[in-house]
Protein backbone atom coordinates (compact mmCIF):
# COMPACT_ATOMS: atom_id res chain seq x y z
CA UNK A 1 0.00 0.00 0.00
CA UNK A 2 1.97 2.93 1.21
CA UNK A 3 5.35 1.34 0.47
CA UNK A 4 4.90 2.83 -2.97
CA UNK A 5 3.68 6.24 -1.77
CA UNK A 6 6.03 8.98 -2.89
CA UNK A 7 7.33 11.27 -0.20
CA UNK A 8 6.31 14.87 -0.79
CA UNK A 9 5.77 18.24 0.87
CA UNK A 10 2.28 18.83 2.21
CA UNK A 11 0.43 21.60 3.98
CA UNK A 12 -1.67 20.40 6.89
CA UNK A 13 -4.08 22.19 9.21
CA UNK A 14 -3.98 21.53 12.94
CA UNK A 15 -7.39 20.25 13.99
CA UNK A 16 -6.55 19.16 17.54
CA UNK A 17 -3.85 20.10 20.00
CA UNK A 18 -4.02 18.91 23.58
CA UNK A 19 -1.64 18.09 26.41
CA UNK A 20 -0.35 14.53 26.39
CA UNK A 21 2.00 14.70 29.39
CA UNK A 22 3.34 17.65 31.37
CA UNK A 23 5.95 18.24 28.66
CA UNK A 24 4.27 16.81 25.57
CA UNK A 25 1.36 17.55 23.30
CA UNK A 26 -0.75 15.47 20.99
CA UNK A 27 -1.35 17.19 17.67
CA UNK A 28 -3.77 15.99 15.01
CA UNK A 29 -3.28 17.43 11.56
CA UNK A 30 -5.63 17.29 8.62
CA UNK A 31 -3.67 16.81 5.39
CA UNK A 32 -6.13 16.67 2.50
CA UNK A 33 -3.83 14.93 0.03
CA UNK A 34 -1.90 12.70 2.47
CA UNK A 35 -1.11 9.40 0.74
CA UNK A 36 -1.32 7.36 3.95
CA UNK A 37 1.67 5.99 5.85
CA UNK A 38 3.05 2.74 7.22
CA UNK A 39 3.27 2.17 10.96
CA UNK A 40 6.60 3.49 12.22
CA UNK A 41 7.19 6.08 9.54
CA UNK A 42 8.02 9.66 10.39
CA UNK A 43 7.66 13.08 8.85
CA UNK A 44 9.57 16.37 9.01
CA UNK A 45 7.89 19.56 10.23
CA UNK A 46 9.38 22.73 8.75
CA UNK A 47 8.75 26.13 10.34
CA UNK A 48 9.44 29.44 8.58
CA UNK A 49 9.97 32.73 10.41
CA UNK A 50 8.98 36.09 8.85
CA UNK A 51 12.62 36.80 7.90
CA UNK A 52 12.85 33.53 6.00
CA UNK A 53 14.72 31.59 8.68
CA UNK A 54 13.68 27.93 8.73
CA UNK A 55 13.92 25.14 11.26
CA UNK A 56 13.02 21.53 10.55
CA UNK A 57 12.74 18.44 12.77
CA UNK A 58 11.57 14.84 12.39
CA UNK A 59 8.67 13.36 14.34
CA UNK A 60 7.30 9.82 14.36
CA UNK A 61 3.70 9.52 13.22
CA UNK A 62 1.43 7.96 15.82
CA UNK A 63 -1.18 7.07 13.24
CA UNK A 64 -0.95 4.63 10.34
CA UNK A 65 -2.86 3.49 7.31
CA UNK A 66 -4.91 5.37 4.77
CA UNK A 67 -6.67 8.53 5.79
CA UNK A 68 -5.99 12.24 5.79
CA UNK A 69 -5.76 12.82 9.53
CA UNK A 70 -2.34 12.21 10.95
CA UNK A 71 -1.33 12.31 14.56
CA UNK A 72 1.90 13.39 16.25
CA UNK A 73 2.86 13.37 19.92
CA UNK A 74 5.65 15.88 20.47
CA UNK A 75 7.82 16.05 23.59
CA UNK A 76 9.26 19.45 24.38
CA UNK A 77 13.05 19.54 24.58
CA UNK A 78 14.26 22.27 26.97
CA UNK A 79 16.73 23.67 24.45
CA UNK A 80 14.69 22.72 21.41
CA UNK A 81 13.88 24.98 18.54
CA UNK A 82 10.84 23.32 16.99
CA UNK A 83 9.39 21.28 19.85
CA UNK A 84 8.74 24.26 22.19
CA UNK A 85 6.84 25.91 19.35
CA UNK A 86 4.77 22.79 18.67
CA UNK A 87 4.06 22.13 22.33
CA UNK A 88 3.38 25.68 23.49
CA UNK A 89 2.46 27.89 20.57
CA UNK A 90 0.79 25.95 17.77
CA UNK A 91 -2.97 26.43 17.79
CA UNK A 92 -5.94 24.73 16.17
CA UNK A 93 -6.35 26.22 12.72
CA UNK A 94 -2.63 26.81 12.17
CA UNK A 95 -1.06 25.48 9.01
CA UNK A 96 2.13 23.43 9.12
CA UNK A 97 4.51 22.40 6.36
CA UNK A 98 5.18 18.66 6.41
CA UNK A 99 7.53 16.39 4.50
CA UNK A 100 6.64 12.74 4.43
CA UNK A 101 5.87 9.94 4.85
CA UNK A 102 9.48 9.03 5.45
CA UNK A 103 11.37 5.87 6.28
CA UNK A 104 10.97 2.28 5.23
CA UNK A 105 13.52 0.93 7.69
CA UNK A 106 11.70 1.32 10.98
CA UNK A 107 8.23 0.12 9.95
CA UNK A 108 5.95 -2.77 10.82
CA UNK A 109 3.55 -4.27 8.32
CA UNK A 110 0.97 -7.00 8.93
CA UNK A 111 1.63 -10.68 8.30
CA UNK A 112 -0.66 -10.53 5.29
CA UNK A 113 1.99 -8.34 3.64
CA UNK A 114 5.29 -9.64 5.01
CA UNK A 115 4.38 -13.31 5.56
CA UNK A 116 6.60 -13.08 8.63
CA UNK A 117 5.07 -14.98 11.54
CA UNK A 118 7.76 -14.25 14.11
CA UNK A 119 6.68 -12.45 17.30
CA UNK A 120 7.44 -8.74 17.67
CA UNK A 121 9.04 -7.06 20.71
CA UNK A 122 8.69 -3.29 20.98
CA UNK A 123 10.93 -1.46 23.47
CA UNK A 124 10.32 2.25 24.09
CA UNK A 125 12.03 4.90 26.18
CA UNK A 126 9.86 7.94 26.97
CA UNK A 127 8.50 9.60 23.84
CA UNK A 128 10.04 6.74 21.84
CA UNK A 129 6.69 4.98 22.21
CA UNK A 130 5.11 7.13 19.49
CA UNK A 131 5.99 4.98 16.45
CA UNK A 132 4.85 1.95 18.46
CA UNK A 133 1.41 3.49 18.90
CA UNK A 134 1.13 3.42 15.12
CA UNK A 135 2.29 -0.19 15.11
CA UNK A 136 -0.07 -1.45 17.81
CA UNK A 137 -2.97 0.41 16.19
CA UNK A 138 -2.15 -1.07 12.79
CA UNK A 139 -1.82 -4.50 14.41
CA UNK A 140 -5.26 -4.17 16.00
CA UNK A 141 -6.88 -2.74 12.86
CA UNK A 142 -5.60 -5.65 10.78
CA UNK A 143 -6.61 -8.19 13.46
CA UNK A 144 -3.09 -9.43 12.91
CA UNK A 145 -2.20 -12.70 14.69
CA UNK A 146 1.46 -11.78 15.29
CA UNK A 147 2.28 -11.91 19.02
CA UNK A 148 3.20 -8.37 20.10
CA UNK A 149 4.84 -7.32 23.33
CA UNK A 150 5.67 -3.76 24.47
CA UNK A 151 8.24 -2.84 27.10
CA UNK A 152 7.85 0.83 27.99
CA UNK A 153 10.42 2.64 30.15
CA UNK A 154 9.58 6.05 31.59
CA UNK A 155 10.73 8.20 34.51
CA UNK A 156 7.37 8.46 36.27
CA UNK A 157 3.72 7.52 35.66
CA UNK A 158 2.79 10.99 34.34
CA UNK A 159 5.34 10.59 31.55
CA UNK A 160 3.44 7.70 29.95
CA UNK A 161 2.17 8.69 26.51
CA UNK A 162 -1.24 7.42 25.40
CA UNK A 163 -1.90 6.00 28.84
CA UNK A 164 -5.61 5.36 28.34
CA UNK A 165 -5.24 3.88 24.90
CA UNK A 166 -2.47 1.57 26.06
CA UNK A 167 -4.58 0.51 29.04
CA UNK A 168 -7.42 -0.38 26.70
CA UNK A 169 -5.12 -2.32 24.40
CA UNK A 170 -3.73 -4.15 27.43
CA UNK A 171 -7.25 -5.04 28.52
CA UNK A 172 -7.82 -6.38 25.00
CA UNK A 173 -4.79 -8.63 25.30
CA UNK A 174 -1.67 -6.61 24.32
CA UNK A 175 1.14 -7.49 26.70
CA UNK A 176 2.66 -4.29 28.07
CA UNK A 177 5.36 -4.05 30.75
CA UNK A 178 6.27 -0.71 32.32
CA UNK A 179 9.57 0.19 33.97
CA UNK A 180 9.67 3.37 36.06
CA UNK A 181 13.12 4.77 36.66
CA UNK A 182 12.41 7.61 39.07
CA UNK A 183 8.94 7.33 40.64
CA UNK A 184 6.68 4.28 40.45
CA UNK A 185 2.89 4.18 41.01
CA UNK A 186 1.75 3.61 44.64
CA UNK A 187 0.89 -0.04 44.31
CA UNK A 188 3.87 -0.95 42.15
CA UNK A 189 5.47 -4.25 43.21
CA UNK A 190 8.99 -3.09 42.35
CA UNK A 191 10.75 0.08 43.60
CA UNK A 192 11.51 2.65 40.91
CA UNK A 193 14.92 2.27 39.33
CA UNK A 194 16.72 2.32 36.03
CA UNK A 195 16.08 -0.64 33.78
CA UNK A 196 18.57 -3.47 34.15
CA UNK A 197 19.66 -6.28 31.88
CA UNK A 198 17.90 -8.73 34.20
CA UNK A 199 14.62 -6.82 33.96
CA UNK A 200 14.97 -6.68 30.19
CA UNK A 201 15.55 -10.44 30.08
CA UNK A 202 12.46 -10.93 32.21
CA UNK A 203 10.17 -8.74 30.14
CA UNK A 204 11.31 -9.29 26.58
CA UNK A 205 10.39 -12.15 24.29
CA UNK A 206 13.32 -14.56 24.63
CA UNK A 207 15.97 -14.80 21.92
CA UNK A 208 15.03 -18.46 21.39
CA UNK A 209 11.69 -17.29 19.94
CA UNK A 210 13.59 -15.22 17.38
CA UNK A 211 11.46 -12.09 17.71
CA UNK A 212 11.81 -9.05 15.51
CA UNK A 213 12.77 -6.28 17.91
CA UNK A 214 12.18 -2.54 17.54
CA UNK A 215 13.80 -0.12 19.98
CA UNK A 216 13.00 3.60 20.02
CA UNK A 217 14.23 6.25 22.44
CA UNK A 218 17.22 8.43 23.19
CA UNK A 219 20.55 7.31 21.82
CA UNK A 220 21.79 6.29 25.26
CA UNK A 221 18.70 4.20 25.96
CA UNK A 222 18.73 2.49 22.57
CA UNK A 223 22.41 1.59 22.73
CA UNK A 224 22.07 0.21 26.23
CA UNK A 225 19.10 -1.99 25.34
CA UNK A 226 20.51 -3.13 21.99
CA UNK A 227 23.79 -4.11 23.61
CA UNK A 228 22.03 -6.18 26.26
CA UNK A 229 19.78 -7.87 23.72
CA UNK A 230 22.80 -9.03 21.77
CA UNK A 231 24.35 -10.34 24.99
CA UNK A 232 21.07 -12.17 25.63
CA UNK A 233 21.41 -13.94 22.30
CA UNK A 234 19.38 -11.84 19.88
CA UNK A 235 20.79 -11.45 16.42
CA UNK A 236 21.80 -7.89 15.51
CA UNK A 237 19.97 -8.30 12.20
CA UNK A 238 16.69 -8.86 14.04
CA UNK A 239 16.94 -5.56 15.90
CA UNK A 240 15.85 -2.26 14.36
CA UNK A 241 16.55 0.94 16.18
CA UNK A 242 15.40 4.53 16.02
CA UNK A 243 17.44 6.89 18.14
CA UNK A 244 16.58 10.52 18.48
CA UNK A 245 19.88 11.86 19.79
CA UNK A 246 20.75 12.80 23.36
CA UNK A 247 21.73 10.64 26.32
Amino acid at each position, binding site marked *: MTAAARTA*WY*TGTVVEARPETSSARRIVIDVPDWPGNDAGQHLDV*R*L*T*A*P*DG*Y*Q*AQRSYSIASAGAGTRIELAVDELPDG*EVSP*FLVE*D*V*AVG*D*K*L*ELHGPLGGYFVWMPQSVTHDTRPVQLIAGGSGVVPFLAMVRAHADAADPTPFRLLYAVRQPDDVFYRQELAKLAADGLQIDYVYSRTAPHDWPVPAGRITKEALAGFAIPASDKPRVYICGSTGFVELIAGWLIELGHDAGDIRTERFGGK
Partner: protein
Amino acid sequence: MSFITRGFSGRNRERDPRLPPGQTKVEDWPVLSAGPTPKIDTADWSFTVTTETGAQTHWSWDELRALGIEDITTDIHCVTHWSKLEMPWRGVPIDKILAGIPTHAKYVMAHSYGGYTTNVPLDELLNGQAWVAFEAEGVPLDPEHGGPARLLVPHLYFWKSAKWVNGLTLMDKDDPGFWEQAGYNLHGDPWKEERYW
Protein backbone atom coordinates in the same frame (compact mmCIF):
# COMPACT_ATOMS: atom_id res chain seq x y z
CA MET B 1 6.09 26.60 -1.42
CA SER B 2 7.10 27.56 2.11
CA PHE B 3 4.80 29.95 3.89
CA ILE B 4 5.51 31.84 7.07
CA THR B 5 4.47 29.76 10.06
CA ARG B 6 2.14 31.80 12.28
CA GLY B 7 3.82 32.62 15.58
CA PHE B 8 7.30 31.22 14.77
CA SER B 9 10.28 33.55 14.94
CA GLY B 10 13.17 31.16 15.50
CA ARG B 11 15.57 31.43 18.39
CA ASN B 12 16.29 34.90 19.69
CA ARG B 13 18.95 35.75 17.13
CA GLU B 14 20.84 38.98 17.67
CA ARG B 15 22.29 41.00 14.80
CA ASP B 16 25.64 42.73 15.08
CA PRO B 17 27.46 44.81 12.49
CA ARG B 18 30.62 42.78 13.05
CA LEU B 19 28.96 39.72 11.56
CA PRO B 20 29.81 38.53 8.05
CA PRO B 21 26.85 38.09 5.66
CA GLY B 22 24.39 35.35 6.62
CA GLN B 23 25.74 34.93 10.15
CA THR B 24 23.93 35.21 13.45
CA LYS B 25 25.59 35.91 16.78
CA VAL B 26 25.23 33.25 19.47
CA GLU B 27 26.25 33.22 23.12
CA ASP B 28 26.55 29.46 23.58
CA TRP B 29 29.02 27.30 21.67
CA PRO B 30 27.28 24.72 19.45
CA VAL B 31 28.97 21.36 18.94
CA LEU B 32 28.91 19.98 15.42
CA SER B 33 30.65 16.79 14.45
CA ALA B 34 31.04 14.43 11.51
CA GLY B 35 31.75 11.43 13.66
CA PRO B 36 32.51 10.06 17.11
CA THR B 37 34.61 12.21 19.45
CA PRO B 38 38.21 10.98 19.72
CA LYS B 39 39.57 10.78 23.27
CA ILE B 40 43.29 11.46 23.23
CA ASP B 41 45.49 11.64 26.30
CA THR B 42 48.12 14.38 26.16
CA ALA B 43 50.68 11.73 27.14
CA ASP B 44 49.95 9.98 23.84
CA TRP B 45 49.45 13.14 21.78
CA SER B 46 51.91 14.17 19.08
CA PHE B 47 51.99 16.70 16.28
CA THR B 48 53.73 16.09 12.94
CA VAL B 49 54.62 18.43 10.10
CA THR B 50 55.30 16.62 6.82
CA THR B 51 56.78 18.59 3.93
CA GLU B 52 56.03 18.03 0.24
CA THR B 53 59.18 15.88 0.05
CA GLY B 54 58.09 13.66 2.91
CA ALA B 55 60.47 15.07 5.54
CA GLN B 56 58.86 14.96 8.99
CA THR B 57 59.21 16.87 12.23
CA HIS B 58 57.44 15.69 15.41
CA TRP B 59 56.56 17.37 18.68
CA SER B 60 55.17 15.92 21.84
CA TRP B 61 52.53 17.82 23.85
CA ASP B 62 55.13 19.52 26.02
CA GLU B 63 57.50 20.20 23.14
CA LEU B 64 54.85 21.96 21.06
CA ARG B 65 53.67 24.08 23.96
CA ALA B 66 57.27 25.02 24.74
CA LEU B 67 57.43 26.88 21.41
CA GLY B 68 55.46 29.63 23.11
CA ILE B 69 51.75 30.01 23.87
CA GLU B 70 50.02 33.31 23.31
CA ASP B 71 46.62 34.81 24.04
CA ILE B 72 44.27 35.55 21.16
CA THR B 73 40.87 37.23 21.16
CA THR B 74 38.97 36.62 17.97
CA ASP B 75 35.60 36.08 16.29
CA ILE B 76 34.71 32.66 14.86
CA HIS B 77 32.20 31.94 12.10
CA CYS B 78 30.61 28.57 11.41
CA VAL B 79 29.26 27.85 7.95
CA THR B 80 26.02 26.73 9.62
CA HIS B 81 25.37 30.43 10.23
CA TRP B 82 26.38 30.98 13.84
CA SER B 83 29.21 33.24 14.99
CA LYS B 84 30.81 33.89 18.33
CA LEU B 85 32.43 37.26 18.82
CA GLU B 86 35.39 38.29 21.00
CA MET B 87 36.29 34.76 22.03
CA PRO B 88 39.47 34.33 24.10
CA TRP B 89 41.81 31.52 23.04
CA ARG B 90 45.32 30.34 23.89
CA GLY B 91 47.63 28.53 21.50
CA VAL B 92 50.95 28.23 19.71
CA PRO B 93 51.20 30.26 16.47
CA ILE B 94 51.66 28.17 13.32
CA ASP B 95 54.46 30.66 12.48
CA LYS B 96 56.49 29.18 15.36
CA ILE B 97 55.71 25.59 14.32
CA LEU B 98 56.72 26.09 10.69
CA ALA B 99 59.69 28.36 11.41
CA GLY B 100 62.83 26.72 10.08
CA ILE B 101 61.03 24.09 7.98
CA PRO B 102 62.05 24.64 4.35
CA THR B 103 59.28 24.28 1.80
CA HIS B 104 58.15 25.38 -1.65
CA ALA B 105 54.63 24.16 -1.07
CA LYS B 106 51.71 26.56 -1.34
CA TYR B 107 49.02 24.52 0.42
CA VAL B 108 48.55 22.59 3.62
CA MET B 109 46.31 19.66 4.58
CA ALA B 110 45.52 19.60 8.28
CA HIS B 111 45.00 16.09 9.70
CA SER B 112 43.20 15.07 12.85
CA TYR B 113 42.81 12.13 15.19
CA GLY B 114 39.71 10.33 13.87
CA GLY B 115 40.54 10.98 10.22
CA TYR B 116 39.20 14.47 9.57
CA THR B 117 41.07 16.61 7.06
CA THR B 118 40.82 20.16 5.75
CA ASN B 119 42.93 22.15 3.26
CA VAL B 120 44.20 25.72 3.70
CA PRO B 121 46.64 27.86 1.63
CA LEU B 122 49.99 27.97 3.47
CA ASP B 123 50.18 31.78 3.42
CA GLU B 124 46.84 31.90 5.28
CA LEU B 125 48.31 29.92 8.17
CA LEU B 126 51.25 32.29 8.58
CA ASN B 127 51.71 35.90 9.72
CA GLY B 128 49.64 35.63 12.83
CA GLN B 129 46.59 34.12 11.17
CA ALA B 130 46.57 30.63 12.72
CA TRP B 131 47.41 28.64 15.84
CA VAL B 132 47.31 25.21 17.39
CA ALA B 133 44.97 26.06 20.23
CA PHE B 134 44.66 24.37 23.63
CA GLU B 135 42.30 26.64 25.53
CA ALA B 136 39.16 28.57 24.80
CA GLU B 137 37.18 30.85 27.10
CA GLY B 138 39.70 30.33 29.89
CA VAL B 139 39.55 26.54 30.09
CA PRO B 140 41.35 23.70 28.31
CA LEU B 141 39.45 22.56 25.23
CA ASP B 142 37.23 19.64 26.04
CA PRO B 143 37.04 16.77 23.55
CA GLU B 144 33.64 17.87 22.20
CA HIS B 145 35.16 21.15 21.10
CA GLY B 146 38.28 19.59 19.65
CA GLY B 147 40.48 19.07 22.70
CA PRO B 148 43.19 18.47 23.63
CA ALA B 149 44.25 20.66 20.66
CA ARG B 150 42.64 22.01 17.53
CA LEU B 151 43.71 24.17 14.65
CA LEU B 152 42.47 27.76 14.91
CA VAL B 153 42.15 29.71 11.64
CA PRO B 154 39.49 32.28 12.56
CA HIS B 155 39.51 34.29 9.34
CA LEU B 156 38.04 31.27 7.49
CA TYR B 157 34.83 29.35 8.21
CA PHE B 158 35.31 27.27 11.30
CA TRP B 159 35.26 23.86 9.60
CA LYS B 160 38.83 24.80 8.62
CA SER B 161 39.80 24.98 12.32
CA ALA B 162 40.26 21.24 12.47
CA LYS B 163 39.33 19.66 15.80
CA TRP B 164 41.73 17.07 17.28
CA VAL B 165 44.48 18.28 14.94
CA ASN B 166 47.58 16.12 14.94
CA GLY B 167 49.53 17.32 11.94
CA LEU B 168 50.01 19.45 8.87
CA THR B 169 51.07 18.12 5.50
CA LEU B 170 52.51 20.61 3.04
CA MET B 171 51.34 20.06 -0.51
CA ASP B 172 51.80 21.58 -3.94
CA LYS B 173 48.14 21.34 -4.94
CA ASP B 174 45.04 22.55 -3.16
CA ASP B 175 43.69 19.04 -2.58
CA PRO B 176 40.24 19.04 -0.94
CA GLY B 177 39.77 17.80 2.62
CA PHE B 178 36.72 16.10 4.12
CA TRP B 179 34.02 18.78 3.77
CA GLU B 180 35.62 20.28 0.66
CA GLN B 181 35.09 16.93 -1.08
CA ALA B 182 31.50 16.80 0.16
CA GLY B 183 30.31 20.14 -1.24
CA TYR B 184 32.00 22.87 0.77
CA ASN B 185 34.18 25.61 -0.67
CA LEU B 186 37.91 25.00 -1.09
CA HIS B 187 38.74 28.39 0.44
CA GLY B 188 35.97 29.36 2.87
CA ASP B 189 36.15 33.16 3.39
CA PRO B 190 33.09 34.18 5.46
CA TRP B 191 33.28 37.79 4.26
CA LYS B 192 32.78 36.62 0.69
CA GLU B 193 30.31 33.92 1.82
CA GLU B 194 32.44 31.21 0.25
CA ARG B 195 30.38 28.38 1.69
CA TYR B 196 29.86 25.83 -1.09
CA TRP B 197 31.39 24.73 -4.38
